[in-house]
């Protein structure tokens, strides 16, 4: 017996000493962190952007209840950040993992925000004074932000960051206005990136997805025709806290559209562009967006062009039926391509109904572009020593019976990074991964747990 072996203690004591790393601060990572922390374990939640929240913070409403997305997420974000057992490390990334289940040593790179997180109160006076305007990535360039910024109004932690690529103090040694403005002396242009080492017993990977850029599928006209939008862009412009204050406006002329077309499966169920899988959410989110558009304006006409409607979840089909019945949403069974009326920048949708080609002019087109694994998946998979699927999702040990386990003991998966899933499923997986991590904590090593089970099985077999 090695000296590292746990001394006999009750499970409660083991939990209190338990430490888990959660990578990714989206809704799955937040859920996993809260579950573990509530049970008494210590959690390090590492998030690469300056705020936790993930994609759910971008959305206007969530299906199938049409709840305000940020309204149900923000309390969870706040709970997570304020939890005594959770250490939220934003602007950070995992760059090294050594050891095994029960005793991982993890190296974390903490990118400098050039702001003392303890001192900043989020008063945003510096943001007001900052002279440098940058296209806002949170609004996909539809709005602007400053070089010192918080990513969105409900950001957690409510601490500003300086964008090192655009800040003229950092790039050209000019300005320095934010330092002068800050009454608490939180700005530090000399702040360096730091590496930190932590010891954990289990790791949960929940890094989510990124939307696929449909520019290369030129037949949809995205990037060429101003009034063709991606779904996530549309979520922002229909959102009251978005760049247009919730007014649905066209890029070309600022006018409100009356006829909107939604095109499904853009880049998904498409082996030709490398994504044969169904993104599993666009049937529902396009239906939702069509409903919301109608809620904004009574005269809004929405048409959804689809390959198949896959409204498979609980209450999902009823949701679609409600869209048809109560919101007048029209569903057309055809993929479609987009042309443009050069005179008024109206997109023209070309499609096929029962073998007859149709052309129809719309005011706006919203593409349900697919969601793909993050570009950083490859790198992280190498750091963690776990395999990816052929499409670069993280690979489960067993898709059916061990969906949240990976081939490496002590490393678990949650959310979209393990394969297409909607919000409720991501939350469920977050909880599932937390429970699997708890198993490691209480046995202190998966090996121990495995051995215990094996002994049990052997006993049964010999009995």
């Amino acid at each position: 017996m090695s000296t590292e072996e746990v001394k006999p203690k009750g499970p409660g004591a083991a939990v209190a000493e338990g430490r888990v790393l959660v990578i990714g601060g989206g809704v799955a990572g937040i859920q996993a962190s809260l579950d573990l922390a509530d049970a008494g374990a210590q959690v390090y939640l590492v998030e690469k952007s300056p705020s936790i929240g993930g994609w759910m913070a971008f959305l206007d409403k969530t299906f199938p209840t049409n709840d305000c997305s940020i309204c149900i997420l923000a309390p969870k974000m706040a709970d997570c950040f304020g939890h005594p057992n959770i250490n939220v490390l934003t602007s950070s990334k995992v760059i090294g993992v050594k050891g095994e289940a029960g005793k991982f040593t993890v190296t974390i790179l903490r990118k400098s925000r050039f702001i003392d997180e303890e001192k900043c109160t989020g008063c945003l006076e510096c943001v007001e004074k900052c002279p440098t305007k940058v296209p806002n990535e949170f609004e996909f360039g539809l709005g602007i932000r400053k070089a010192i910024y918080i990513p969105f109004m409900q950001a957690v932690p409510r601490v500003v960051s300086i964008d090192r690529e655009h800040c003229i103090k950092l790039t050209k040694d000019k300005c320095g206005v934010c330092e002068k403005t800050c009454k608490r002396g939180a700005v530090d242009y000399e702040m360096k990136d730091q590496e930190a080492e932590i010891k954990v017993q289990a790791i949960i990977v929940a890094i989510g997805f990124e939307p696929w850029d449909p520019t290369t599928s030129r037949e949809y006209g995205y990037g060429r025709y101003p009034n063709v939008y991606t779904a996530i862009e549309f979520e922002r412009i229909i959102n009251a806290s978005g760049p247009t204050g919730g007014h649905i406006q066209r890029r070309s002329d600022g006018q409100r559209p009356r006829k909107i077309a939604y095109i499904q499966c853009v880049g998904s169920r498409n082996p030709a562009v490398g994504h044969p899988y169904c993104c599993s959410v666009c049937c529902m989110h396009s239906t939702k967006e069509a409903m919301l558009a109608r809620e904004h304006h009574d005269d809004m006409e929405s048409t959804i062009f689809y390959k198949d409607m896959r409204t498979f979840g609980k209450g999902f089909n009823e949701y679609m039926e409600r869209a048809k019945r109560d919101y007048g949403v029209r569903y057309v069974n055809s993929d479609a391509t987009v042309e443009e009326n050069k005179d008024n920048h109206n997109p023209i949708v070309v499609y096929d109904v029962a073998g007859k080609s149709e052309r129809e002019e719309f005011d706006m087109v919203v593409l349900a572009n697919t969601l793909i694994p993050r570009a950083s998946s490859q790198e992280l998979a190498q750091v963690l020593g776990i395999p990816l699927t052929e499409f670069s999702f993280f690979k489960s040990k067993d898709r059916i019976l061990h969906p949240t386990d990976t081939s490496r003991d002590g490393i678990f998966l949650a959310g979209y990074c393990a394969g297409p899933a909607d919000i409720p499923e991501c939350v469920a997986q977050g909880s599932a991964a937390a429970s699997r991590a708890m198993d490691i904590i209480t046995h202190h090593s998966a090996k121990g747990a495995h051995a215990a089970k094996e002994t049990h099985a052997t006993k049964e077999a010999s009995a």
Partner: protein
Amino acid sequence: MAADEAKQKLDGLIKKTGAFDCVECGKCTSLCPITKEDPNFAPRLIVVKALEGMAEQVAGARDIWVCLTCARCSAKCPYKVNYTEFIRGMRETARKGGVAPACSEGGLMNSLAGLMTKPDLGQNRLGWLEEGMKVAEKGQYLLFTGCTPYLNVIFGEKDDRVLEGTKAAVRILNKLGITPVVSADERCCGHDQYWAGDRETFEKLARLNIEWIKSTGAKTVLATCPECFRALTKDYQKVDPDFDIEVLHISEFLCDQLEDGKLKLTKEVPETVTYHDGCRLARHIGVVDEPRMLLEKVPGLKMAEMESAGDESACCGVSALMNCDNTSKSIQLRRLKEAKATGASRMLAFCPKCRIHFKCARTGNLPFPKEEVDIDVVDFLTVLDRAI
């Protein structure tokens, strides 16, 4: 042909071309250049009927002869259904059932191809060679001239410069110090027969050409016509799997020569041109960048892209000289308008047939002012020839 046989052939085709994977999304229809002019033509419907086992309806319908096999649909099909091959296979089946297409120009080119299947045929097809052009019967490089000498006779009225590209090719190769093989023993490449479902004639032509090419001792075959190029690179191998002589499109070859410093483009060509990618060259094979790289190196030349270019290029409206009708005309005029809108003085193309079709479309009565489509269509190589 018995219904059973048609059904069997259809099942084989569905497997071979991946049509079974079709999810009936209709993207093919939304991209089809024919559909744009004739809304009742729907590629999706043809596949759906085939999948439903309606073999005879599919094989007997006019639709399979209307398709341009331009591969606009295949290139974008999410499930990678090889639609062009599906149509071609259906045509073979239909022909066996006694259904044949109506060829334009009274089927003259087609009859000529038939004549060329005679092994001991003596052709007089080198009359276009000008004084000073150096060609040989044997050598390392073979220039596949294609049907331009015949097209020149038949379509001379519509396009009196059909041969200019072939001549330019010889001149350019001579300037590079190459004496290409150009011979009266060359036959029609058989492309049109292959795509019209006449497998028998195609195979005869392919065998004769392969035999001839081998007899010249050529190491590299250079093709200028995109249709010949497609046949030589993709279809001859189906007739003779051992046919492994290197086949390059002349633009690929000249790009290599440019990189090696052998081809020097030094003379100014001060004008703006646009370039029409043939469907065989750009989509069937994927030669898109080479022609553009060459144009870029011509001093003083400006290249203006059309609205649809590269592998999304619009079609010339006719394939295998089978289907020339109002739909073709509309497609051609639409393309000419695109070319004219670039502000270019000329539209370049490699394919002699594309050029003939465009020039023909311009000559009829137009439903709009002639100026909208008034752009010269010339062979690509003539520009390079002027620049050396």
